[in-house]
């Protein structure tokens, strides 16, 4: 009998808890508060969730028309600063809203499975990195014409790889530290005159014998670092 009472008490508590799940789903089962813009939907899970299907994109686009995202609000009002953040949702090949959007910030980004893939974007948008990414403001990234894909992949900003051999092989006497050629941590330029072997006056005199006066860009001729130029013809302007 005593055991029966214990079980009845436990059962009653469990029934009460289950009832609370239906009465206060935003507290009992929600993984965290909704973002302020969706706060009004907090107690109505089915606004976004469909049974056993999570949050189908169709639920999102029923309010957020893809053609308007980044251009107009859901109320139809024009977004004032639309030009500062280019509308790219229109370039999505498939609709997979949750790949990027977390509406319950309680489930912090660190706990989310990384679902975003650049493959969701069409090819044109996929290769316009600066549409979404702001390049770092440093000397290394100062050349805006450079292609990001030279060093970075769409899998992640890091690790970044740079194939130095494509531009100048670091072999033999040229196996030097970065700072020997790239002074002041500026990797967009280089100098060969940091080394006593390439004393400017002597190099200039030697090139003048061949009628070459412009010796600013050594690698344009000495692509592999050899004494004789292997690259394109020297500029003798």
């Amino acid at each position: 009998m005593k055991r029966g009472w214990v079980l009845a008490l436990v059962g009653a508590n469990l029934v009460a808890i289950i009832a609370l799940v239906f009465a206060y789903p935003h507290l009992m089962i929600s993984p965290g508060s909704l973002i302020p813009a969706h706060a009004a939907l907090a107690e109505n899970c089915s606004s976004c969730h469909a049974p056993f299907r999570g949050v189908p994109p169709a639920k999102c686009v029923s309010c957020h028309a893809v053609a308007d995202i980044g251009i107009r609000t859901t109320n139809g009002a024009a977004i004032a600063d639309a030009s500062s953040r280019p509308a790219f949702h229109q370039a999505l090949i498939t609709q997979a809203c949750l790949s990027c959007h977390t509406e319950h910030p309680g489930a912090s980004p660190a706990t989310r499975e990384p679902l975003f893939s650049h493959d969701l974007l069409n090819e044109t948008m996929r290769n316009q990195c600066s549409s979404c990414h702001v390049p770092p403001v440093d000397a290394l990234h100062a050349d805006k014409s450079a292609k990001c894909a030279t060093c970075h992949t769409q899998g992640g900003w890091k690790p970044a790889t740079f194939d130095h051999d494509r531009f100048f092989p670091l072999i033999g006497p040229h196996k030097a530290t970065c700072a020997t050629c790239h002074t002041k941590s500026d990797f967009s330029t280089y100098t060969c005159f940091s080394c006593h072997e390439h004393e400017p006056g002597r190099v200039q005199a030697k090139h003048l014998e061949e009628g070459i006066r412009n010796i600013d860009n050594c690698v344009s001729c000495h692509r592999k670092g050899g004494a004789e130029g292997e690259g394109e013809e020297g500029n003798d302007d």
Partner: protein
Amino acid sequence: MKIRHAHILTREVLPFLASLLALVALALLFDALLHLLNAVWVGRYLGIPGVLLIVGSFGYSLRKRKLIHAGKPVDLLRLHERMAWAGSLLVLVHAGIHFNAILAWLAVWAMLINVASGLTGKFLLQRARRRLEAARDAMRRQGLSAEELEDSTYWDTLAFDVVKQWRAVHFPIALAFGVLALAHIAAVFWHWGWK
């Protein structure tokens, strides 16, 4: 007297506490490891093997209530202890994903109370077992085989009053954990997008 107290501490109390502390410490360690590897999201899926291990551990409960007849109760009990402990560890790491839902946390607390209760039961069983050592010796002298002896001692141990009382407490705790966990799983299945 001092020797007896030291014996109880090292043979009974410390192993009990060590199991419980090891569970929490390992869960924290795995959680830290996932944070370090930037793979906290993996914890979300550890709930699945964790639950499967716990469900698998119920084989012993079914055997004990004679709902199934396969397996030796003693072996199933050991399996029950190990599977439930390992499953709880995975569920704890899963809980470390920092969800805010009250239901999920109630289920976790019920699980921890259940683990503590289970370890208490293990402790009580071992004590009862030791008290039966004398009787066991007597049976051995009667010429029972090792296997018959093991089974006989197991059922005799369960017959101890304190163990019976503990079982009366452990069942409602397990029931509460089961219902809360089931409700949490149902809520997740209902709202989550499985692909």
